[in-house]
């Protein structure tokens, strides 16, 4: 790296980083497939039409308290008529994790689409991030739940 001029570049870079690209309207953000073979596609508006839940917490991946808004996992599962069982969540980089439907409690994990009122770009780990209320419940501060806190979520495979 070039030594001279690093600082101004850093500042510029940081500023630019905050721009990123957010999901466009109508663009599919989440695909929900069922074990019965069904598939539902959601764009951001469709998700925002569902009941809104909010989590106010700090996380290990961020700095300071964040306010996440989204649809609670419970609401989403109910909306798609999922049954008891295990959900498989898949991320943009092919990261994959199983989440038991028993996790979907109220209050409980939320499929967040807003962080501090802003949509999240991929660089921000958006557009969708499954957030648990870490500060409210010490049980969520374990690696098991960190592992379930999937970001850059693109697909949910639910039992039906």
């Amino acid at each position, binding site marked *: *790296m070039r030594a001279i001029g690093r600082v101004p570049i*850093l500042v510029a870079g940081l500023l630019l980083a905050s721009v990123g690209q957010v999901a466009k309207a109508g663009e599919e953000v989440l695909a929900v497939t069922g074990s019965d073979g069904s598939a539902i596609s959601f764009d951001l508006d469709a998700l925002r039409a569902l009941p809104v839940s909010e989590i106010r917490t700090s996380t290990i991946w961020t700095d300071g308290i964040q306010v996440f808004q989204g649809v609670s996992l419970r609401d989403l599962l109910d909306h798609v008529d999922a049954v008891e069982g295990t959900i498989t969540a898949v991320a943009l980089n092919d990261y994959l994790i199983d989440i038991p439907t028993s996790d979907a409690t109220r209050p409980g994990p939320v499929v967040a689409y807003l962080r501090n009122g802003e949509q999240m770009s*991929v660089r921000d780990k958006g557009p969708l991030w499954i957030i648990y209320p870490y500060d409210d419940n010490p049980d969520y501060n374990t690696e098991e739940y960190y592992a379930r806190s999937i970001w850059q979520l693109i697909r949910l495979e639910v039992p039906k």
Partner: protein
Amino acid sequence: MLVLIGYSALLGREAMVRLDTLSTAASDDIRWNMSQLEVELLRLQSAALKARDGGQGDIQQLRTRFDIFYSRTQIVLRGALYDQAREIPEVQERLQSLRAFLAESVPIIDAPEPILADRLPELAHLVEQASPEVRDLALTIVNTSARAADTQRLKVSETLRRLALSVLGLLVALTIVALLLLRLYRSSQVVSAEKEAVKSRFEAAVKSALDAVLVVDTEGHIIEFNGGAEAMFGYSRSEALGQPMSDLIIPPHYRARHEEGMRRFREHGTSRVVGRGHLRLEGMRKSGEVFPIELSISLAETSDQLVFISFLRDITNRLKTEDDLREARDTAQAGAQAKAQLLTVMSHEMRTPLNGILGSLDLMERDELSPKQVRLVRAIRVSGELLLTQVNRVLDLSRLESGMIEFPKEPFALLPMVRRLTESLTAAAEERGNRLQTTLVGDDPGVVLGNRIALQQALVNLLGNAIKFTRNGEISLEVERLNDDRMIEFRISDTGLGIPAKDIERIFDEFVTIDTAYARENPGTGLGLSITRRLVWAMGGEIEVESIEHEGSLFLIRLPLEPGEAVELASEKERGQPEPGPLKGKRVLVIEDNDINRMLLLDMLEEFGCQVVLARDGFEGVAAAKSARYDLLLVDISMPGKDGLETLREIRAQEGPNGPVRAIAITANVRDEDKERFAAAGFDGFLAKPISMLQLQEMLSGLLLRPEAEAERSTAREFIRRFGMAEYQRHLLGMVDALHAVCDDLANTELSETLKARVHEQAGSAAILGRADLHSLLQEIEATDAADWPARRGGMLDRLKTELARTRAVSLGG
């Protein structure tokens, strides 16, 4: 243990915290994220290369891959997970280069497609350069996080270990405490059981106590009321419990004091009654009857209250008994006193006429009497003296009983005293055909410390009895010092009538005589043995008797007679001859109410050559003393009207010529208190009735003539001083006995030269022993011609016998 608990709690909390930290410390996440960072960078690198060589679709892929990588970098650059890592300088360095890479690559990626396509090689190059740096960063962070994780784990395990130990310690402590508690529990059980036992014993004791037991609280209400109280006061227990005690059992006139006392106690905690031992008060029964009680109160503290516990006893009977006893004692004392007084008065009354009789005999004997008269006079004297002896015995007995006689101890030679005694009784013994002998068993006790007079009296009594009850027999007196060097035993045995077994117990009793043939002929008062026993007891000794009827008796006296030291006996009064001369011309005033005694005194004093004035009572005496001066006053004590003491006091008080004159009291009783009274009244001496001329002369001489009488008595005194009183008396006795023998011979034979020689020999003794009269008489006999003897024999022998009798009297001493 508290320390352990605290420590355990502390450790527990620490453990929890650390475990918490462990659970929340997403150390695995740190490593996972770093490795994912590397992976994403490699994918980015691969995408960059593909895009350089490929088409449009690949560019989109490249952008996505960059975004994904970028999003991961934000975690290490900003995420809370790497807060600690970012502190480490090595990490900071590498982060800087990462930031630099991002700063340079972001503008390229974000540029429009054509520009991006152009700059792809540049981007690829940047990525290539970044790769090892990112790896480096990842490794650095992984290493530091690993260390941190290990440290954490160690700390946790250490904490857990300590926790385990402290919990163990706690368990041990708990076990010990549990054991202690168990032991405490057991012992408290034991204590409790004991207390139960004591309590039930106490309750039983109170219940069955004969005395009344009351328990009362500080307000005065009855808490306990036992069976004894029920019986004593007449209330049943149920009636009495809870009631105020003062209403129930305290008589009305005591209630105010009781309430006062209770109030004082409640306020000050003091009491005149509690814990003060036995008190006598009065109680009241249910019937209202007031009766005397004895009570004792004490305070007891139970767990929550103070109570008074009192024991009461109905002493009505006891008081009555006490009163009865007191009465009986007073009556008995009065009776005893009356008896003593009676005896004293009686003896005085009896001694006074006896005085008269014996005194007259004294005077008669001084004259020449015919043989018949001599015999008669002797008979009268014997009877009179016997009567006097009996009266004295009665008086002695009453005095002994009331403890009035003193028994001072003096040193005296035992064996000579005993021998003298037996010698004096030999004649009487031989008269009845008895042989009397004295034997010493063991060593000669020498001089002993004891009461000579009492011992003599006792021995004379016993020997006299032995002689009296034995005819033609053997009487023996044995003297023996016992082993312990303190006691001496006198054994008087006889072969006489003996004492029947049934009477042995009684012989020492007063007025007991045994009904034997002898006793009927010779009645006695039965006082002899009684007096003897009292004498022996008074000397601290014992007396025993053994006897077999018709065979004989043995009387045994054991006395403490410790060895004493011979003492100069020059102070003892000896009886000298009546010396008429020196008293000639002395003026004597006699104040005596009894005619005979007055007459006697007159005669005696005129014999001495005194000038006598008589007064018939105290008044005449005082009047006589006022008018003329006398050399001596003789005053009878017991006169009616004004007694002797009063008379003398008045005379002394008078401003007359007889204020300082010497006075002698004449009395029948001489006790110590009497002597003191005489001295207090102003008397210089006293004479006890019956008075003999010898006593009178001595007293007079002593008071009036000191210097002259000395000369005559000094010879005798000299002898006594040299050889002791015992020897003196022994010699006198010897001389008298020898002269008696001479008398008998003189009566029957001629006055031969042989006889004269014997007379001469005894005359010498008489001189040395200070018997001047006897001496001159013997000289007279010696000087008489044999021719004249028959004519003068009668008179001289009579005088000799009189003289000898007097000398014998002196030789027998007290």
